[in-house]
């Protein structure tokens, strides 16, 4: 198998047939995995922030939840995916810096805000989330295998888990 395609911050990558898409080290970012099992088309967006400050000047659509979701759908539709039947899994939105003085530490709730914004953006396009691994204190690496539709999540201290399989049963559907 070819080496995985890295989806950097604010990037969106789509693939058809084979390959692996991956976001390494999602902190408060969110990786949105989308899959059309009938066509074998997969997409992965690496969202940084909840919403665009100024919708007219967005340098990278994949940066924000509200612009990233429509762009992910557009790119997948371009490959021939049926965007009304996409299966979705979301991963990330952690609060990574967990040690500190309670109360005096900076308010770092961007992860939680990202989760909310991504869920809203997906609701807006009538897509349901089939599996999620979000929140908490751990950074995550997510990989989406295009051929099998398997979504795997890795963290520093725990073994890799299979979050879901878009083509088969959903073992850990949330």
């Amino acid at each position, binding site marked *: 198998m070819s080496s995985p395609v890295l989806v950097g911050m*604010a990037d969106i990558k789509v693939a058809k047939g084979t390959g692996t898409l991956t976001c390494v*080290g999602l902190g408060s970012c969110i990786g949105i995995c989308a899959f059309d099992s009938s066509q074998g088309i997969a997409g992965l967006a690496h969202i940084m922030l909840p919403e665009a400050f100024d919708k007219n000047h967005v340098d990278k659509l994949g940066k924000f939840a509200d612009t990233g979701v429509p762009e992910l759908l557009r790119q997948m539709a371009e490959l021939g995916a049926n965007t009304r039947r996409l299966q979705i899994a979301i991963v990330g939105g952690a609060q990574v*810096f967990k*040690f500190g003085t309670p109360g005096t530490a*900076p308010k770092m709730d961007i992860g939680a805000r990202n989760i909310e914004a991504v869920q809203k953006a997906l609701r807006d396009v009538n897509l349901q989330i089939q599996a999620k691994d979000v929140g908490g204190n751990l950074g995550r690496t997510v990989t989406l295998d295009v051929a099998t539709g398997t979504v795997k999540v890795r963290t520093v*201290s725990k073994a890799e888990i299979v979050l879901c399989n878009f083509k088969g049963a959903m073992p850990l559907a949330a």
Partner: protein
Amino acid sequence: MCLIPESVHTFLPTNHRPEGEPFLVVWAILAPLPVFRFRGPIWHRLGLPACEVTGKFVEQVLLRLEQGPRSESDFESEGNGSHRRFMRERYAELGPIGQSVIKEMANIGLGNATTSLAEMTGHCFEMSVPEATTLAMEDLPNLAGASEDPFVGIYMPISGETTGHMGFFLSWDSAQALWKMLLNAAPETPDDISEMDASALIEVGNIINGSFLRAISEFSGVNMMASPPVMSVDMMSAMLATMAIEASQTHHLAISIRTEIFDKSSSFSGFFVMLPTIEGVDMIFRNFGIAEAS
């Protein structure tokens, strides 16, 4: 002393300066002038007499500013991406002198930090010559090569007259070495970290980040304070991404200063990242009497 801020003021062209990033370059070069003024002998290490260094590098600044953007399309074609590329090219163009200035600042800031660390641990530390790089915010998580290895990061937002973000990062092995020095024992895995362990490393990060900030603050005359630190043990890129996101909510620039701090028995290395705001850089600029910068 061949330079006073007013002379910079007179020469500074205002029309060619593109919005945003190039501030960094200018700040990086001008901010340490007082370093030279108060700590002249340091410059001898660069192998040049102090005055000559100053004259040369001011000349460099003016030259770079006068050249302006290479072409309009540099800035219009791809929005911020080109800005960043341009900044990187420009930074690279500045070459040894611009780099030396940032390094020198880091040298002093982190030198103080090393001394404090030595006092705290009772061990003798040495510091390598810092390397400084500017980079695009989105590239920040890849600073350690998209690493999934566990690192310890101590992050501190900067408050005061201007805001910003800074963090000190060290590998898990380095953290264990530090713990052994400080507490005579180290947790086996990230899950075993006790409150005591956490607070010891937070304190180290606090000292390193704080000394660096104090140094910049003193030299530039812009009052900056560190907010209480927070710590994480996680994938390097997850921590850097989190920092980049915090900074992306307003306009920030990224400078990474990488330095190694050694101990005779067990070597460990850490690196330091600072993300100043454009406004903050601007303010430092004005403090040198360069009003047109705003």
